[in-house]
């Protein structure tokens, strides 16, 4: 399903173990440190490390930030609103996963 003649770009799997500094995260997601700080203080992002200079984000944070930014933009959410929405989304995702794992047993009831 590719166009003939065009180069093929090989995608690399982003490992959850990949670690980014706050500067790299800001650069990747075009956000500023104040915004990241706010998300950390709301518990939306949970980097390793005590102080801002020591913060280490894993690559999965990038996806979380992208979702947070879209929710912020599309619903004019403030920081606590983003935190609440993401927490509810996490819960829905966990429930869906649980539902998937229970589906075989459920059918047998």
């Amino acid at each position, binding site marked *: *399903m*590719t*166009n003939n003649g*065009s*180069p*093929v*770009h*090989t*995608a*690399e*799997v*982003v490992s959850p173990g990949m670690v980014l500094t706050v500067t790299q995260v800001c*650069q*990747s*997601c*075009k956000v500023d440190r104040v915004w990241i700080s706010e998300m950390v203080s709301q518990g939306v992002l949970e980097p390793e490390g005590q102080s801002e200079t020591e913060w280490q984000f894993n*690559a*999965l944070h*990038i*996806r979380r930030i*992208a*979702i947070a930014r*879209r*929710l912020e*933009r*599309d*619903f004019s959410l403030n920081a606590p609103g983003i935190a609440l929405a993401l927490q509810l*989304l996490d819960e829905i995702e966990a429930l869906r*996963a649980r539902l*998937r*794992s229970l*589906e*075989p*047993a459920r*059918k*047998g009831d």
Partner: protein
Amino acid sequence: MEFKDYYKILGVERSASQDEIKRAYRKLARKYHPDLNKDAGAEVRFKEIGEAYDVLGDAEKRAAYDQLGADYAAGQEFRPPPNWSFEFSTSGVGPDHDFSDFFETLFGRGRQSGGFSSRSQQFRSREFQERGEDHHARIVIDLADAINGAARSVTLRTPQLDENGLRTMRSRTLNVKIPKGVTDGQQIRLKGQGAPGIGGGPPGDLYLTVEFAPDPLYRIDGSDVYLDLPVAPWEAALGASVNTPTPSGPVNLKIPAGSGQGRKLRVKGRGIPSNPPGDFYAVLQIALPPANTAEARAVYEEMARKLAFDPRAKFGGK
């Protein structure tokens, strides 16, 4: 070009107040936002709603649309009147929007509001260098793609500014080699395929979040794959060897004697070949033969007579 009925899209009357329009938009946006709604088609609907609100939520654009659209119905062939032009008095649409041809014919492409172009020129004059932004998109693949790896072409529409500061949507198609072993929700990265850098800075990366299209046979949980495997009552009771499909080819699965409904049988390492590889689970579904012949009925009757079997024993006679 088809006429788009923005009122219908937002589900409001043509006489709706600006407040009603805003309310309808917000409700629909929450319902169809692609981060909240995982249904296929939600994203398209969300864009459509956004476009409708961009027009109807703005009094000026709404008036222009009403004037043009009074005689049209949704889906009807639409031609803008000759010499039609619309000047934005406000800043116009933002760079993140990707609107239809119908919208662009009526309202043109939005003039960039912020100082992005002037800012980037300023950066250039000071020889400022900055790495380009990373872009994010989704890619839907089949289970077989995750098992074998696959090449897929992905079309991305990204906003860009031309030399006049006008927003244009640039379409580009990328051929992407998807490594085998990716799982649902996982991210894959294409280096250098994000936004171009500023002032000669390096480009950003493109992150694709992998989503699986629903599979008719298998269920996927992380890197594990589940299959409902129908078995006959005697296969479950007496044990059997059953030819069973798995995503990476059929296996002969040994059903232990005395297996019950819903029993999970694992084939290690036969799930998605991620690191570590997932497992394959066959979930036994006991299928009952119909009692639709005299012979079949006789067998059931014999079982009823000879087996001391109480399927409701756990009720304790209540």
